[in-house]
C-alpha cells in the first residue's frame, strides 16, 4: 500500500470515529492482529469525554478486563507489555481458565492506561488479593511493591501496569483469575434467570452453558448482553480455582501473537504511523550529566525534509527514578532518515561536567576495590569470622569483577507523541506506562486523566528501567510542537546512551577451611555504585552454603553512569561470585563440587533447603554427572535461587553446563541440563522453556563476550560491531529442561535463571586449562591450553 493510500485508510478510520485502525498495511485480518486507537480528534483538539478503548462500542464490556462479542470472540485486556516473555498469552490464560471460554477465540488487547488513571478497581477485588493475601492453598503471596508517587497498585483499575521483575504471573494471577471468575458467575446467573432454573444446575465450558436437565444450551456470546446488566449479588464470595482444578493453566500453549510475528504484522512502537506525523532524530551529550552548550541549526536548515530543531534540557531525574541522563538536540524532519542525516552534519558543542570528563572504567574499578577496605554496610555478622579464618587449616581469597552491561534490546528507543492543549497521546512500547503517564502530565501540564498511552509490543525488554528517557524526550519535543504528532527514534548509538546499565561490580570472598575441607568461616565484601541495584542485593544475607562464621558487607561509591534493573539485576553478578567461589573451595578441598554444594546446603536451616537439594540432585542426574568426558570437555554445576532465605515465594534451579575448549582457546557451551522448580504449577510451561533457552544465551553472552567500558566519561561500545552478541553458531546444541514440583508460589522465570552459565564456564576453563579467571567477560583472556 502506498503512503497516501495508507493515510487515506487511516483518515477513513478516523472519520469512523473510534473504530480501530491498524497502522500496518494489510494487517487487518483475523484475531491476531495488534491494533490501537487513533483519537478521533488527533489533529483538532476537540473535547473527548467518551470511553476510549472499546473494540466495538455496541458490545458492552463485562468488566474492565473482558468483552464478549456475539460470535463468542473474547477480548481480554492485558495490563502488562508483551516484550517476548509471553505475557499476552499467560495473562489471557489466567482469565480464560476461570471464565471457561473457548481459548481458540480469545483475543488479547492492551488495557487502557488512560482508564487506569480515571477508574479504580472494584473494592471487593482489593480485599481478596492485596498485600498480604495468600494463595488459596497457602502457596505464597504477591510481592506488590510500593509505587509512590505513581498511582497504581493497590487500587487503580488495572492495578499493576508495570512489566518487571519477571512478576507478571506472580502478581497478576490473583486479580486476573478473579476477573474471569466474576464474569463466569454472572454469565451463569444470566442464563439461570433466562431459563428460570437454579444456577447450580448449569455448567459452563468452552463458552457454552448447558442445562442438562432440560437439554437447553446457549453460548456466552448470546447472553453476554444480559450478563453485562447482571451484577454479581455477592462478589466477595467468589473464589478462584486452586491449581488442582486448572485445565488450561499449566498446559503448553503456543503464544497467541506468534502468527503476527512471523508475517511482520505486529505493531511495535517504531512502526507507528500517523497522518501529519513528523520524525525526530536526537543526539544527547555522550557524557551523562552533560548538556548542550551550542548547536548550529542554520548549517542544516536547508537539508532535505528538515523542519526544525529543538534543544532539550537534561530530563528531570525525578521522572526517571532519580537517574541523570543528558541534555540533547533533536532535529525534526519529514522522514527519520532525513532528520538523522541532517543531525549527523550539525555541529554540536557540549558542556561536559569537569568531574566526569576524565572518568574511565579502569579508575572506577580501582575505586570499587578500594571502598571494599572501608567499613561498609554490614548485613550479617555471625560468629567471629576473623578468628575462625586465623584458626583454619587452609584459607582462600578471591576477587571477582563484573562490568557495566546494557540491555541492548533489538528495537531502539522510540515514542510517538501528540500534545494538544488539553490532551496527550503517546504510542509506545513501555514497561512502566503508569509512570510515563505521570511524566507526560508533569511535562505538559495536562492532567493524567487526559493522557492516553497506546501500548505497543516492545522489541525486547530485559529491564524496565532501561527504557531511559525515550518517552520524556519525545514528550518534550512534542510539547514544543503542539498539534503535530512527533515520532522520536534513537539510533543504535543513541540507544547505548539512553539506556541504563547494570552497574559494574566487584567482590572479595575469603574463606577458611578445616582439615576436612569444610568452611569454618566465610567473609564476603561486595562493591557497586550506590544507585546500582546491587549494594544491598549483591550477596546473601543468609549464607546458602553453611559456614558457622559468616559475614557479608556491601560497599558503595558514586559514579555518573545511570544504572537500572537489567535482566538478572543483582542476582547475576552475585551468583557468579558465589558459585565460582564455591567451586574454588570444593577444588581446594579436593571434593566433588556437586556433593560439596549438597552437603553445605543440607547443613543450613534455610526454609527452601530441601528444594535446593532436589534441584542439584536432578540436574546432576540429568547430566550423567561423574561419567567420563573427552579431553578438553568439562562439566560444572551450580545453584540458582531467589528467595530461599524466607518462607513464601522462591524460584530455585540448578544447571549443569558441559563445556568444551579447543586447544586454541575456543569455548563451546555444548550442553545444558536444567532442573527447574515449578512451584505448585507454571502457567504456560512452553513460555518458561523459551525463557530458559533465551537466558542461557543471555548469560553466555555476559560470561564470554559483553562489557561496556567508559573512557573520558562516555560509553565506548555503542553498536553491535564493538558490543558483541552471539549468533546461532554459539547456541548450545543440547538443552534439556526438567521441572520439579514444590509447594511454594514462584518468584518468576524471565530474568534471573541461567546465571550459572557464568560460573559454569569459569570452572570449565579451570578444569580444562588450569587457569582461573574471575573477571568477566572471559573472551578477554587467553584460554588456549595443552
Amino acid at each position, binding site marked *: 500500500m502506498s503512503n497516501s493510500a495508507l493515510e487515506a485508510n487511516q483518515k477513513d478510520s478516523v472519520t469512523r470515529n473510534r473504530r480501530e485502525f491498524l497502522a*500496518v498495511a494489510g494487517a487487518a485480518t483475523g484475531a491476531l492482529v495488534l491494533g490501537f486507537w487513533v483519537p478521533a480528534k488527533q489533529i483538532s483538539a476537540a473535547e473527548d469525554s467518551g470511553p476510549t478503548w472499546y473494540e466495538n462500542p455496541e458490545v458492552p464490556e463485562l468488566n474492565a478486563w473482558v468483552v464478549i462479542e456475539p460470535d463468542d470472540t473474547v477480548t481480554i485486556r492485558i495490563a502488562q507489555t508483551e516484550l517476548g516473555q509471553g505475557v499476552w498469552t499467560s495473562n489471557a490464560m489466567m482469565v480464560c481458565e476461570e471464565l471457561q471460554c473457548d481459548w481458540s477465540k480469545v483475543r488479547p488487547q492492551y488495557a487502557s492506561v488512560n482508564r487506569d488513571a480515571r477508574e479504580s478497581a472494584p473494592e471487593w477485588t482489593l480485599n481478596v488479593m492485596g498485600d498480604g493475601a495468600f494463595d488459596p492453598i497457602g502457596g505464597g503471596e504477591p510481592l506488590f511493591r510500593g509505587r509512590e508517587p505513581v498511582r497504581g497498585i493497590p487500587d487503580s483499575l488495572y492495578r499493576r501496569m508495570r512489566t518487571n521483575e519477571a512478576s507478571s504471573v506472580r502478581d497478576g494471577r490473583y486479580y486476573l483469575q478473579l476477573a474471569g471468575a466474576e464474569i463466569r458467575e454472572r454469565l451463569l446467573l444470566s442464563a439461570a434467570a433466562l431459563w428460570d432454573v437454579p444456577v447450580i444446575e448449569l455448567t459452563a465450558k468452552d463458552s457454552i452453558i448447558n442445562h442438562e436437565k432440560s437439554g437447553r444450551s446457549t453460548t456466552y456470546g448470546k447472553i453476554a448482553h444480559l450478563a453485562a446488566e447482571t451484577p454479581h449479588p455477592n462478589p466477595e464470595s467468589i473464589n478462584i480455582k486452586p491449581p488442582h482444578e486448572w485445565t488450561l493453566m499449566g498446559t503448553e500453549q503456543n503464544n497467541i501473537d506468534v502468527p503476527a510475528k512471523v508475517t511482520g504484522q505486529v505493531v511495535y512502537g517504531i512502526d507507528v504511523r500517523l497522518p501529519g506525523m513528523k520524525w525526530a532524530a536526537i543526539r544527547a551529550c555522550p557524557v551523562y550529566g552533560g548538556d548542550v552548550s551550542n548547536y548550529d541549526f542554520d548549517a542544516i536548515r536547508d537539508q532535505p525534509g528538515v523542519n526544525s530543531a529543538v534543544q532539550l534540557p537534561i530530563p528531570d531525574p525525578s521522572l526517571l527514578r532519580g537517574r541523570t541522563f543528558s541534555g540533547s538536540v533533536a532535529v525534526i524532519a519529514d522522514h527519520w532518515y532525513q532528520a538523522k542525516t541532517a543531525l549527523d552534519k550539525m555541529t554540536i558543542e557540549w558542556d561536559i561536567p569537569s568531574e566526569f570528563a576524565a572518568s574511565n572504567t579502569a579508575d572506577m574499578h580501582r575505586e570499587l576495590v578500594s571502598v571494599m577496605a572501608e567499613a561498609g554496610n554490614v548485613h550479617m555478622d555471625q560468629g567471629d569470622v576473623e578468628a575462625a579464618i586465623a584458626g583454619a587449616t587452609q584459607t582462600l581469597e578471591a576477587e571477582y569483577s563484573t562490568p557495566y552491561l546494557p540491555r541492548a534490546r533489538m528495537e531502539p528507543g522510540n515514542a510517538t507523541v501528540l500534545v494538544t492543549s488539553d490532551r496527550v497521546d503517546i504510542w509506545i512500547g513501555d514497561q512502566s506506562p503508569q509512570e510515563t503517564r505521570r511524566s507526560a502530565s508533569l511535562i505538559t501540564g495536562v492532567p493524567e486523566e487526559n493522557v492516553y498511552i497506546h501500548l505497543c509490543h516492545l522489541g525486547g525488554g530485559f529491564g524496565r528501567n532501561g527504557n531511559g528517557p525515550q518517552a520524556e524526550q519525545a514528550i518534550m519535543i512534542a510539547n514544543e510542537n503542539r498539534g503535530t504528532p512527533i515520532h522520536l527514534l534513537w539510533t543504535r548509538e543513541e540507544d547505548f546512551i539512553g539506556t541504563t546499565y547494570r552497574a559494574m561490580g566487584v567482590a572479595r570472598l575469603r574463606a577458611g577451611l578445616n582439615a576436612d575441607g569444610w568452611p569454618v568461616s566465610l567473609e564476603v565484601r561486595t562493591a557497586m555504585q550506590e544507585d546500582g541495584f546491587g549494594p544491598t542485593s549483591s550477596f546473601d544475607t543468609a549464607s546458602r552454603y553453611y559456614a558457622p562464621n559468616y559475614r557479608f558487607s556491601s560497599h558503595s561509591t558514586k559514579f555518573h553512569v545511570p544504572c537500572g534493573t537489567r535482566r538478572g539485576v543483582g542476582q547475576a553478578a552475585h551468583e557468579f561470585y558465589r558459585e565460582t567461589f564455591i567451586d574454588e573451595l570444593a577444588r581446594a578441598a579436593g571434593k566433588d563440587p556437586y556433593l560439596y554444594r549438597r552437603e553445605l546446603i543440607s547443613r543450613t536451616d534455610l526454609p527452601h533447603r530441601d528444594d535446593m537439594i532436589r534441584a542439584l540432585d536432578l540436574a546432576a542426574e540429568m547430566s550423567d554427572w561423574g561419567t567420563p568426558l573427552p579431553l578438553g570437555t568439562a562439566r560444572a554445576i551450580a545453584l540458582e535461587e531467589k528467595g530461599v532465605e524466607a518462607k513464601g515465594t522462591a524460584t530455585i534451579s540448578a544447571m549443569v553446563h558441559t563445556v568444551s575448549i579447543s586447544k586454541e582457546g575456543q569455548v563451546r557451551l555444548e550442553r545444558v541440563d536444567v532442573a527447574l522448580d515449578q512451584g505448585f504449577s507454571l502457567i504456560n510451561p512452553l513460555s518458561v522453556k523459551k525463557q530458559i533457552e533465551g537466558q542461557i544465551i543471555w548469560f553466555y553472552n555476559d560470561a564470554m563476550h559483553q562489557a561496556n567500558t567508559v573512557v573520558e566519561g562516555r560509553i565506548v561500545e555503542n553498536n553491535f560491531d564493538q558490543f558483541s552478541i552471539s549468533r546461532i553458531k554459539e547456541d548450545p546444541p543440547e538443552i534439556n529442561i526438567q521441572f520439579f514440583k514444590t509447594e511454594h508460589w514462584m518468584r518468576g522465570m524471565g530474568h534471573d535463571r541461567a546465571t550459572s552459565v557464568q560460573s559454569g564456564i569459569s570452572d570449565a576453563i579451570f578444569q580444562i586449562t588450569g587457569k582461573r579467571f574471575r573477571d568477566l567477560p572471559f573472551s578477554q583472556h587467553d584460554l588456549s591450553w595443552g
Partner: protein
Amino acid sequence: MAFDLEVNGNAYSVEADPQTPLLWVIRDQLGLTGTKFSCGIAQCGACTVHLDGVPLRSCRVPASVAVGKAVKTIEGVSLDGDHPVQVAWKEFDVPQCGYCQSGMIMSSLALLEKNPNPTDAEIDAEITNICRCSTYHRIRQAIHRAAELMRA
C-alpha cells in the same frame, strides 16, 4: 528525485534521495514496516530483505541499487503466514519479542532456496542475524522443519 521500485511484485514510484538506504524507503515511503531497523551498520540483520533472491542488509544499501531488481520483504513471503518457513516458525513457537524475526525468516528462506537440506554447520555459517532474546535454539529446529516442508 523519483525512481521506480518493484517490491513484492508491486511497482512503486518513490520520491526520495536515491542514496537513502533501501530500508528507509521500504519502511517510510512504502509503509512496509515488517522490515526492522536495529543497528544501522549491517551487523544484526533485522533489516534483511531479498534482492533478486539474494539476502542483504537493507540498512546499508542505497535504494538506487534496487532499481530494476525484484525486492522481497517479509510481507512478500506470505501475509497469511502459510509459507513453510512461517508454518515451521509457528510450530516451534520460535519468536519471543519477535523484532528480529522478519530478518531471521528472510535469511532462512534465502538459505533454504539455495540449499534445500542445510546441515547444522551450514545454518551456522549462513544465519548470522542477531536475536537478543536468543531464540536460536528454536530457529535451528524450525529451519530443519521448514526444509522438510519445502521438500514435501
